[in-house]
């Protein structure tokens, strides 16, 4: 190894010519870097899909036996269960992405990026975009598995369901990154996310619909204050092809509202934390 160095190598242009930074260009760069890391280490993507698939294979068939129970929603049990599992994928698949950010922060990657002239919004948006792409691909595979199990649903409903996964995934991912940037600790992030996500999931009727007549009244009313219940019902309505009913539009509206609030807060928080 030499102790001197020719840093004035004539093949190296100095100073570097710059093409300039724009929000779109920066977002695409951050997205490409993040996606490349995900593709190189697909174990997390596979693990993320494993949980909903396990529910689909080992829990879904139980529902086929209880469709006649009073209060159980009308429709094929797979049309009830698959969209709910997709919403779960969007919620849980994205909620834990903050752990990756803590790891990058520990490696010094976040500070390195913060010292570049890149847009602060792009540092968040590029990562969220990667998560949306990964979640959408997982959702497609989940639908394919559902079809294999007996799911029959209108194509438009399926597309809307996947779009809902993308929207919920973007929201949860952005919120997770922002919380991770505030806490900067896996030890603090894990109990917080588990403490919030588990009751939200149980009260959204993903596993078993929390409908009037099927669920005790107190549980039904408790689930009504959980916005995710409406998103799950909206996804189910889409898979049933029931686009005219209020459930679909309320679900869509709640998903949109959650996205506006969540993405807005996350963008402000992430930008402030990384400024």
């Amino acid at each position, binding site marked *: *190894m*030499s*102790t*001197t*160095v*020719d*840093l*004035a*190598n004539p*093949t*190296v*242009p*100095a*100073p*570097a*010519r*710059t*093409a*300039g*930074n724009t929000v779109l260009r*920066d977002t695409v*760069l951050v997205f*490409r*870097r993040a996606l*490349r*890391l995900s593709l*190189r*280490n697909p174990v997390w993507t596979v693990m993320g899909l494993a949980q909903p698939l396990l529910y689909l294979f080992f829990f879904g068939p139980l529902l086929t036996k209880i469709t006649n129970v009073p209060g159980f929603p009308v429709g094929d049990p797979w049309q009830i269960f698959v969209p709910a599992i997709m919403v779960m994928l969007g919620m849980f698949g994205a909620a834990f992405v903050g752990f990756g950010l803590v*790891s*990058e*922060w*520990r*490696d*010094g*990657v976040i*500070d*390195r*990026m*913060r*010292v*570049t*002239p*890149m847009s602060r919004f792009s540092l968040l948006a590029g990562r969220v975009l990667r998560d949306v792409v990964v979640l959408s691909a997982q959702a497609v595979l989940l639908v394919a598995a559902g079809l294999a199990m007996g799911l029959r649903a209108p194509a438009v409903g399926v597309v809307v369901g996947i779009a809902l996964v993308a929207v919920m995934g973007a929201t949860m991912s952005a919120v997770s990154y922002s919380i991770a940037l505030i806490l*900067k600790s896996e030890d603090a992030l894990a109990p917080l996310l588990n403490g919030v996500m588990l009751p939200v999931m149980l009260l959204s009727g993903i596993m078993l619909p929390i409908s009037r007549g099927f669920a005790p009244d107190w549980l039904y009313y408790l689930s009504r204050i959980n916005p995710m219940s409406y998103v799950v019902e909206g996804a189910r309505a889409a898979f049933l092809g029931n686009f005219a009913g209020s459930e679909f539009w309320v679900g869509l509206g709640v998903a949109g509202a959650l996205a506006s609030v969540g993405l807005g807060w996350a963008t402000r928080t992430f930008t402030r934390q990384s*400024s």
Partner: protein
Amino acid sequence: MTSDLTHPMIRARGLAKTYRSRRGQVPAVRGVDLDVADGEIVGFLGPNGAGKTTTLQMLTTLTEPTAGEASIAGHDLRTDPVGVRRSIGYVAQGGSAGSDARVGEELEFQARFYGVPAGEASRRAAALMDQLDLGGLGGRDVKTLSGGQRRRLDIALGLVHTPALVFLDEPTTGLDPQSRSNMWGHIAGLRNELGTTVFITTHYLDEADALCDRILVIDGGRIVATGTPDELKSQVSGDLVTVSVTGDPAPAAEIARGAAGEAEVEVTDRTVRFRVPRGEHAAIDLLRHLDAAGVDLDGLSVQRPTLDDVFLTLTGRTLREDTPAPGDTGSDGGPGGAPGDTDGSDPDGSDPNGSDEKAA
């Protein structure tokens, strides 16, 4: 190196940072004034918690100052942070490369983050890898690199966009002596070949002595001394003369008191020490008197003041006393515990990760 401070690369006035914690206000930096000329290599020395990293984080736009003002390459820190970021490279103490990323890709992306076009980013990454002895490692995962290779990658990440000014936070911490020596060559080359201004924090006084045109000493959040290494050393009164005897040190101490004049003579076990200007002349006189008195000598040495002596004089403690054990992360006053907040170092380069042996 003559400092041209007419158009300084770094200019700061009253730069301060106070953190708020549950226990109240914690001042980390209490009003720093500094000027760094274009093309200078400036060392920033201070014990743990002195405010080095916080100052660096303010100058690199990572932390907003609570008071004062600063400009980097003519860009105001508060009003034009993007202009500041375009002008600087930053090599954090704790590293900055993603463990799961590949070396070449990480460098190319870093160049592109600064707006460098794809083809040029690729060329620069390849050239820097060659220059920093990382040639052939472009396809390797960062996590498989040795400590020395990873540190050189950090340096490359800070340079790939050819900044006018580079901040190096403890660049040789954890490296073995040979890697440290090589790194000095790289850092000196930055200024000598490319004219890059280098602002470097270090725990290694020999490093500051060998590399830096000028040194700033920070303690308790304030700059307590500034000057060239020689100027700072001249503030310490005299050379250290040490006499070791085989028997009772009392006669040697008595003779030494005559040679030391006003200076205090320290006697420990069989060793006598004192400081005098022009120590070699005093040593010759001392030797003559000791010989005449029949004192049996075991050894005699004359030591020029080191920057550690300067440090001791200025802050009342040595840098080594503040050096934490490997793996220990000392806070720099900030409550967050960010990677850049760590001032830990490995003074003897004994960190096993510092070896280049893992290099393929």
